[in-house]
């Protein structure tokens, strides 16, 4: 029993960064902007969050700083894609390369330093929650926030007029514009929101998941988040499911390492998250007919008024 709780707690802990980044990217893509810079924004967030936490000791400042840093990179992408009608794939890749380079340049003096620790909840009333209590009590407040955010984001996107405007910008910007909604504003807003979430996800990595700063510490989680967006058919709650599968595979890896069981060679375990992402991407695209219909119709296409 305690093994099950151990695995479940680590699975949840491992899924949070992918979940946060995926929720952000869902908003970005729903508004019609494809941002492949998630990995870079995550790294910038991880580096900024760690350094601010290390120098000020304040978790709040660390997380907000990380969000601001991610938002700043996303803003560059928004300017390029919305105003300058740039190729969104190239611009997104550039964001990833720039984010990777900047984070490793600025963060280098901080490699190996011990930063702040974020406390787990472990209060009495959470431990008392039936079934989930022992799992949730090993999480941090930010993880709980991410879990609440998923259904909330889904509600905002699908059931509010604000969400309708976002989706309309990504489906048919011309009609949306004609209806008096500023496509430009929504696309900027959603892209920047995506950057904030990716930055937060990065800070989660460097402050909670594997405390400390290391070059390239996101290890592809930004890309996995983008795959989860496709898997989720652009729905935040389904992204939670995808993130949990990813987290579960990571937890298995930890479990086998911790217990010393050599049922599966270590390198195969390291491969699993990437193989699973490929498999999920494949099934979501090839098997699911829903995905094709769920893709925002104007995703990746610039919109401009011909005055």
């Amino acid at each position, binding site marked *: 029993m305690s093994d099950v709780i151990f695995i479940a707690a680590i699975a949840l802990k491992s899924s949070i960064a992918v979940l946060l980044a995926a929720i952000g990217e869902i908003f970005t893509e729903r508004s019609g902007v494809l941002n492949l810079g998630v990995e870079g924004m995550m790294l910038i967030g991880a580096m900024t969050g760690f350094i601010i936490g290390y120098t000020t000791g304040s978790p709040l400042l660390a997380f907000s700083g990380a969000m601001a840093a991610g938002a700043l990179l996303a803003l560059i992408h928004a300017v390029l894609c919305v105003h300058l009608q740039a190729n969104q794939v190239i611009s997104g890749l550039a964001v990833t390369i720039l984010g990777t380079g*900047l984070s490793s340049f600025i963060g*280098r003096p901080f490699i190996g330093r011990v930063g702040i620790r974020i406390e787990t909840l472990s209060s009495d009333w959470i431990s008392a929650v039936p079934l989930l209590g022992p799992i949730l009590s090993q999480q941090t407040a930010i993880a709980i926030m991410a879990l609440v955010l998923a259904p909330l984001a889904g509600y905002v996107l699908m059931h509010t007029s604000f969400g309708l405007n976002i989706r309309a910008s990504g489906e048919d910007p011309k009609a949306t514009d004609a209806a008096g909604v500023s496509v430009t504003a929504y696309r900027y807003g959603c892209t920047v929101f995506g950057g904030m979430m990716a930055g937060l996800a990065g800070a989660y990595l460097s402050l909670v998941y594997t405390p400390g700063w290391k070059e390239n510490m996101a290890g592809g989680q930004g890309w996995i988040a983008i795959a989860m967006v496709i898997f989720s058919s652009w729905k935040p709650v389904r992204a939670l499911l995808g993130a949990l599968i990813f987290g579960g595979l990571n937890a298995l890896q930890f479990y086998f390492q911790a217990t010393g069981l050599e049922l599966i060679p270590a390198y195969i375990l390291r491969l699993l998250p990437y193989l699973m992402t*490929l498999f999920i991407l*494949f099934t979501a695209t090839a098997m699911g007919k829903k995905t094709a219909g769920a893709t925002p119709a104007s995703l990746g296409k610039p919109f401009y008024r011909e005055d």
Partner: protein
Amino acid sequence: MKSVCIEKKSHTRQTWGSTLAVSTLPALVIGAVIFQAAGVSSFRAYAVMLEGAFGNWYAFSEVLVKAIPLMFTGLAVALAARMALWNIGCEGQLVFGGIFAAGVALFFHDCIPDSLMIPILCSAGFAGGALWALIPALMKACWNVNEIISTLMFNYIAVIIMEHLYFGPWRDPMGRGFPGTAMLDPTAWLPRFFQTRIHLGLLIALAAAAAVYVSLSRLTWGYRINVIGKSPKAAGYAHIKFTRQTIVVLLISGGLAGLAGMSEVCGIHLRLQQGVAVGYGYDGIIIAFLARLNPLAVPVIAVFLGGLIVGGDQLQSALHLPSSISQILEGTMLMAIAAGNFFAAYRIKWLRSNP
């Protein structure tokens, strides 16, 4: 009173030369800001980079050495992009080209005649890279699975497999724990020239650039690729087989990246070890778009980017600045390329309103 208006130009003309110039400028400015922020005079930093890359014959020979794998990966990305395919997986294909070449050299060097060794290594490297592109190619061609993410996932997988090989079953038993395979048999070393590390890979890369150029601009096959890339709809009317061409192009693209791995393993490292996967696959993206997907421009741009990388390494040894500055400059250049299309297509006009 003045106001601005954005006007569409009647025609646009962009060459790789202008792209290079226009994208280097903002990168240099951003770099200067970063140098100043790091407390180093930007003039001194750029002087160190320039001197370190082009200051003497040995430095320049190292630039050419770096340019060899970059030529292959640049060609790989450019070929796929001609068909509007994104091969972001060159890094993994490079690794697998290296694994295949190392495998042949380590385990079969006894049964291969010396004169056939290098052609067989080239084939093995090409096959390894192509194999690593096969699954993303099939997934894209048959089920339209996003090739950006699938090729990228295979990068991570390839690196993990390579590490497993040189930490595990392929580790040099005499290496006293050194993470790497045994040194390859000398028959598998690519010949070097001029007492530098410049090796045969340079000639192979130049030949590959010429071959890609000829195929794209002189052969019916290349014409088909260009049609699919420019207008998939027109390609459909012309009964060009999208599925088959997707697979063929991605396999060749992967094979080219595989040659980069072969040339690194057999020309530079002479074994499979840490340092084979250092991001040349990702650099290929920047090279391809700086070259405006022109295969003949790829070698020139690869030398330019090789200079940037060697210069960045010099900053590390001379001024103790992290060499990742070259990555920052690359990212900025790619952004400038993305923005550049807009400035090539539109002009900003100052309007003077009459009182």
